[in-house]
């Protein structure tokens, strides 16, 4: 590679946490910054869209996109960036899986607009402006980056933590990149790196985090909390279980688990008990399962747009 690699960072419908997450590299960030040339990064530098449009195709070494795709403008921008870049990286859960804003897909675009703005909502250009100045249309649904452009790598997490960003930059800067499609996290489940002791105990109740103070050493799932550890990729160091809170799955499901909701349903189906198994316990088992409220929002907190594509037509 001649010269410093050129880097672009762009946000679509996200929260900015992914941009800020670079800063979590702390002093190591300065080393990374000194080894790359930043050509576009609205959060930190003043390059504008017009500057970007003038760049020759494939002149950016790598573009990291964070945020879910939410508007037509998002799509235009990521296509433009794809054209200008050799590598495109889905950075963070929103770009990877649709992310928390992807929960919006539980409602239709029309319902969202209705909740937000009331009836009779219409986009318009500012007075005195041309049609092209009106705000961009919303897409019908929130979508992950890979729906619109080819994605070479994924750095997952909401936001990706330094333990996941670091290896990506190492690979990028050394030029020793893994096969395309690589996700910079473990293939194994989070439970492997979680310090809590796990015994696959039977669940006789579902406990919500505010309902009890969990034992500090024992597995949270064993204690009845819905922890997504068994179906989530490792790589974050089990940050949430260490902090006394169940994993909500931000790094995304392991390749083995696939659909995180279905994988959790399989796991919970095995673990839930209300006394001895058998017809006499059915009703009581159902009551235990009923205490698991909002399963869709719980299991697909970060990944609804990828796994719940098939939606019943309204």
């Amino acid at each position: 590679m001649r010269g410093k690699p050129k880097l672009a960072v762009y946000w679509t419908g996200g929260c900015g946490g992914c941009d800020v997450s670079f800063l979590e590299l702390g002093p190591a960030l300065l080393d990374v910054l000194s080894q790359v040339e930043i050509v576009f990064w609205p959060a930190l530098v003043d390059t504008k869209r017009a500057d970007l449009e003038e760049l020759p195709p494939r002149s950016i070494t790598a573009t990291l996109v964070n945020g879910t795709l939410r508007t037509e403008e998002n799509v235009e921008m990521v296509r433009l960036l794809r054209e200008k870049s050799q590598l495109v990286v889905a950075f963070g859960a929103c770009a990877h899986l649709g992310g928390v804003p992807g929960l919006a897909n539980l409602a239709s675009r029309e319902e969202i607009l209705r909740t937000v703005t009331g009836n009779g909502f219409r986009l318009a250009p500012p007075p005195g402006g041309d049609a092209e100045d009106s705000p961009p249309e919303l897409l019908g649904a929130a979508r992950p980056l890979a729906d619109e452009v080819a994605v070479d790598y994924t750095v997952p997490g909401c936001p990706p933590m330094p333990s996941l960003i670091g290896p990506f930059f190492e690979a990028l800067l050394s030029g020793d990149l893994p096969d395309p499609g690589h996700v910079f996290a473990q293939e194994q489940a989070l439970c492997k790196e979680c310090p809590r002791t796990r015994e696959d105990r039977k669940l006789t109740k579902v406990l919500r985090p505010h309902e009890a103070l969990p034992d500090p050493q024992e597995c949270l799932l064993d204690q009845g909390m819905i922890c997504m550890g068994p179906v989530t990729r490792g790589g974050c160091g089990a940050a949430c279980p260490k902090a006394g809170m169940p994993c909500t799955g931000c790094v995304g499901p392991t390749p083995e688990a696939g659909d995180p909701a279905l994988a959790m349903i399989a796991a919970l189906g095995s673990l839930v008990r209300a006394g001895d198994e058998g017809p006499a316990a059915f009703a009581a088992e159902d009551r235990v399962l009923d205490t698991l409220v909002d399963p869709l929002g719980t299991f697909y907190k970060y990944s609804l747009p990828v796994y719940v594509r098939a939606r019943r037509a309204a």
Partner: protein
Amino acid sequence: MKKIAIDPITRLEGHGKILLYLDEKGGLKGAVLQVPELRGFEAFCRGRRGEEMPQITERICGVCPEAHHLASAKALDAAYGAEVPPAAWAQRELFYNCYIFSDHLLHLVFLGGPDLLLPADTPKSARNVLGVLQAYPELGREVVAVRARAQRVLEIVGGRAIHPVFALPGGVARAITPEEAEEIRSHTQAMVALAEKLVPFFHEEVLPDPGYQSLLASPSAHLPTHYLGLVDEGGAPHFCRGKVRAVSSQGAELFRLEGAAAMERIAERVEPWTYVKFPYLKGLGWAGFAAGPESGIYRVGPLARLNVAERMATPLAQEEYERFLDFFGEKPVHATFAYHWARLVEMVQAAEAAHALAQDKALTGTEIRGRLGKPGEGVGVVEAARGTLFHRYALDENGLVRDLDLIVATTHNAAGIGLSVKQMAEEVVGKGTLDEALLNQIEMAFRAYDPCLACATHFLPGEMPLVVEIYDVEGRLERRIAR
């Protein structure tokens, strides 16, 4: 007619573009700050588990997730009628002061700061954090290192540095160990040491700069609005507890109320031509897009907090506050670019307060959860780095969110930001050829607020209007610019 687009506006949080419309003679016909984003949090938070809200609403904004996290937890405390034990509050407050410190540092070095720390003619390719690091290599590195320490405290207490997981209705997730408390103290000490260095740095390197002096004095950046912010019992700014105090543009107290009651005093103006709502003080009513004593428009954030306060809570901050007031010689201070200085005063208080909390025995207390009642409705209010943040939830009998309402910092400031950008655009357009440096000056007008468009648009697409209606002395509408 000519159109100039600044797209995207940069070094702030979130998406935005500015459109300027000029007539044939190059005069300004209109200016629009467009925020082309909508994520629909309002819609999809309904039906989620209440206790998840601190972890969902924080995804509104990755720059101030801590503010949403805690506002949300406070709303849940109220919704469950919980008494939060002192040990839990010690954790929350320590965490929160570290966040304010860290966020203000972020602005200083990465976002708005480069405008002030670098000469106005700095080419845009260098007008950023890298330029700052080149100009001030030592201090720059120290800022990055100490910010990492503050973030480390956030990680210890919050579980994760960005998008923390620790606050729950009635308390926090787990107790802090004595070893952790010791590590925390070493970090908060470094924070205080940095704050002690930043004050003289500001007075030697930033304040005397003629560019900054002229911005502070500029009539185009003088906006006499009312102000709103949290204060403690002694009248000092508090970032996450206390009462909401409002003072008028002339400095008189308008009210001092608990969060829920204060929220009642705020109405939101809906304008047919935009999707952003404009909060204003109900008591004064809506008098169009104008500052002044009769208008209900108020501002929030660092400058507002210093304006509603009677003093600062900690000694070094108090000293700097006095220098600040002496400089302006009036209170409230209406100079928009004083937001930057106010941020420094707050950074000092946050560091000192964090260090005091780190030494408090309560921090390692093990009684960290208050008893919860039946789920109902509640309001939580905190001061985000950018200003007052309200969360209001109604929970159903299963503790699922039935309804919610958020008023975020940048939304409170929407009208003020619009007015400031407009003022600056008029001044800049009057200067003739619109080069890049002049256009940046327009961006500087709102970077002073450190606005967070991600917060402002958690559910709203569309435009923040930059409407100025200019009235003649008799109050007749003389000119309505743009929208």
